């Protein structure tokens, strides 16, 4: 890959995703190009780049995959969980009617690590956890992963960021390799099937205080990104927050949200009042 081809690729990826690939990442970028060219049968960079630009068969996600943390495990991107308990819930409680449940959405929830992580984190780290009703909903388009999420059975890798105490407290070991989330906790997270691009499927889930929507929007095409963002906006209470994946930005997705910076994370917010336009 020539210097100019690298530049061209970086410009395209920056424009499309907001991700910056500088000289420091060059080795990894070249390696990924080689892997993807082999996987797609491209014989020259130019033809691979055309494929990437056209996002043929989701090639952008395939390429970028190698640079984001895709594996799902408990307490992944915990800086956002920290932000939740340090800042976001506090802000929400300032404006929520007394007694109204705190509602948190994990979408896509995949095999459930994220919604269960949120539950455990709150129980462990939020001093006010006993003073509020908390509803956690996990949703995904893939009914197979939802089945797995409801079952709540995980291997060592998924639990690698959890201390032995946490595992002891919230899981039951069912064999050498597997632990299951305790029934009480499993029973308190609701799972639903949702296609983010279909308002008819997102609306019934109601309004949330915080939505975690990580590593999916950025891979949708233009039109789908817009529709999904509008759906998520509707599912946020005024003043509610949405957290994207670590390398994602609303700047490539939608102007509906305001960016807010906290000590632990940058998040996006639906404005409290009707906008002044």
């Amino acid at each position, binding site marked *: 890959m020539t210097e100019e081809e690298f530049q061209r690729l970086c*410009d395209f990826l920056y*424009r499309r995703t907001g991700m910056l690939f500088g000289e420091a990442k060059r080795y990894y970028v070249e390696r990924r190009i080689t892997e993807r060219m082999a996987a797609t049968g491209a014989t020259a960079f130019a033809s691979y780049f055309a494929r990437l630009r056209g996002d043929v068969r989701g090639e952008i996600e395939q390429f970028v995959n190698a640079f984001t943390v895709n594996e799902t495990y408990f307490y992944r991107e915990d800086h956002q969980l920290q932000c939740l308990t340090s800042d976001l819930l506090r802000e929400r409680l300032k404006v929520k009617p007394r007694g109204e449940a705190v509602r948190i959405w994990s979408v896509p929830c995949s095999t459930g690590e994220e919604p269960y992580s949120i539950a455990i984190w709150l129980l462990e780290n939020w001093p006010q956890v006993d003073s509020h009703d908390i509803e956690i909903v996990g949703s995904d388009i893939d009914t197979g992963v939802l089945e797995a999420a409801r079952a709540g059975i995980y291997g060592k890798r998924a639990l690698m960021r959890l201390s032995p105490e946490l595992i002891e407290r919230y899981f039951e070991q069912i064999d050498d390799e597997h632990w299951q989330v305790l029934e009480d906790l499993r029973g308190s997270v609701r799972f639903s099937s949702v296609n983010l691009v279909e308002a008819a499927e997102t609306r019934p889930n109601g309004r949330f205080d915080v939505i975690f929507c990580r590593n999916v929007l950025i891979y949708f095409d233009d039109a789908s990104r817009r529709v999904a963002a509008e759906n998520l906006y509707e599912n946020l209470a005024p003043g509610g927050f949405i957290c994207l994946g670590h390398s994602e930005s609303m*700047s490539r997705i*939608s*102007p509906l949200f305001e*960016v807010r*910076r906290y000590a632990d994370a*940058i998040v996006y917010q639906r404005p409290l009042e009707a906008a002044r336009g």
Partner: protein
Amino acid sequence: MADGDKRRVLVIDDASLVRLYYRDALERAGFEVDEALNGLEAFEKLMMHPPALLVVDVNMPRMDGMTFLRLLRRQAGPIGSTPALVTSTEAGVQDMAAARAAGANFYLTKPVAQDTLALYAAMLCGIPA
């Protein structure tokens, strides 16, 4: 403001070659340059590293420069009054007036020459010639 911050410029333009051209001019003039591709990204960048000056184009996807400026000027604190140099393909008096009304401190018509940019950047950052 510390000396280092006085020299930080955030270039906000969706054209990669424009950003490259401005970066070249500004770095040679001793500035540190950050980039954003639209008004939304600009907010993210300026929250992370508040610049001494914004160079803002008008026509950018998802959030144009005028909308960005109006929202910026509504922010409380020093960030809301960050000097902003607007660049635009429009040369009309009414366009300049609109930019001023949105909160621009200065206005340059594109294509902007490199020495013009460096000169006005220094002026708006309060750096002696």
